[in-house]
């Protein structure tokens, strides 16, 4: 009886290990997150820093990954702890949206200005080619005739 009970306990423990290690969602990775998080003391992303603060934050992230925290959860915890400046990219909300839309707006405005410039330039060239040939006055015409006669 005791042997049977022991066998059940051992089997349960053996199964409990992998079950505890598995997460209900795909596990994120330190590699994925360290390019998105800033080192607060050196102002580079974590993947480019080996400073004490960066190392400590990497350890914290790895610990939370091991505890099955999602990337969003980890980012949110770090923002709570260090403020929004810990994120390498601005959020997609509120005033921060400007940081995403302004460059796009700039590119569109630049393209529009360029297109307008090209359109104007091509119209100017067209109108240049449409101009009738300039008429010579009587004196110039006579001089030209004399020159041509000499060439003959």
């Amino acid at each position: 009886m005791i042997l049977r009970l022991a066998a059940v306990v051992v089997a349960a423990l053996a199964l409990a290990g992998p079950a505890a290690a598995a997460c209900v969602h795909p596990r994120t990775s330190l590699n994925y997150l360290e390019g998105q998080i800033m080192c607060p003391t050196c102002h580079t992303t974590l993947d480019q820093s080996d400073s004490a603060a960066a190392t400590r934050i990497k350890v914290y992230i790895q610990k939370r990954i091991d505890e099955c925290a999602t990337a969003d959860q980890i980012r949110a915890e770090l923002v709570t702890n260090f403020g929004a400046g810990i994120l390498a990219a601005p959020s997609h909300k509120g005033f921060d949206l400007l940081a995403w839309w302004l460059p796009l707006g700039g590119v569109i405005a630049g393209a529009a200005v360029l297109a307008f410039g090209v359109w104007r330039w091509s119209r100017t060239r067209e109108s240049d080619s449409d101009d009738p040939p300039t008429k010579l006055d009587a004196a110039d015409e006579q001089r030209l005739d004399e020159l041509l006669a000499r060439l003959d």
Partner: protein
Amino acid sequence: MRVLKLSGQVVALAAVAGLLGLLVWRVTHRTAPPKIGGPAPTFKLERVDKPGTVDLASLRGKPVVLNFWASWCVPCKGEAAMLEQASHEYSKQGVVFLGVDWHDVTSDAHRFLSKHGVTYTTVLDRTGSIADRYGVAAVPETYFIDRQGRLVGVHIVGTVVNQTEAFRRGVEAALHS
């Protein structure tokens, strides 16, 4: 067409002027460390050791030893015991020790305080903005503030363990100026 061209030029000029203005503002607003003898930058920060906040202005009338530290900082571990001992020693004379935890994971800060037996008040500078106003570039750094809220004595950069004489002078200056 002329109006369009003129508007474009005005917009371009305004953009350049704006960028120049931003550059000038950034250069002129660089944080320099506060001067000894000048007012200590004030702050109100959340406590690490227990719930609540600490307003530096509320400590006016008491000499303050302000120590910037972080749990990941090795020299900070080395000086924790000395600061704790000094806080007990000088508490009889009314000196307040205030730790400012810089760019730290809160749970690590709790562990640090518990491990090193730090009992004096500690606040959390989450974003590092207060440390910036004090010109702190790395931790540990220690400032001394007199009863009038002025920075006095010395500004200790690095661990106080190797600068005990400067530390003693700083506390004395905070007490007697």
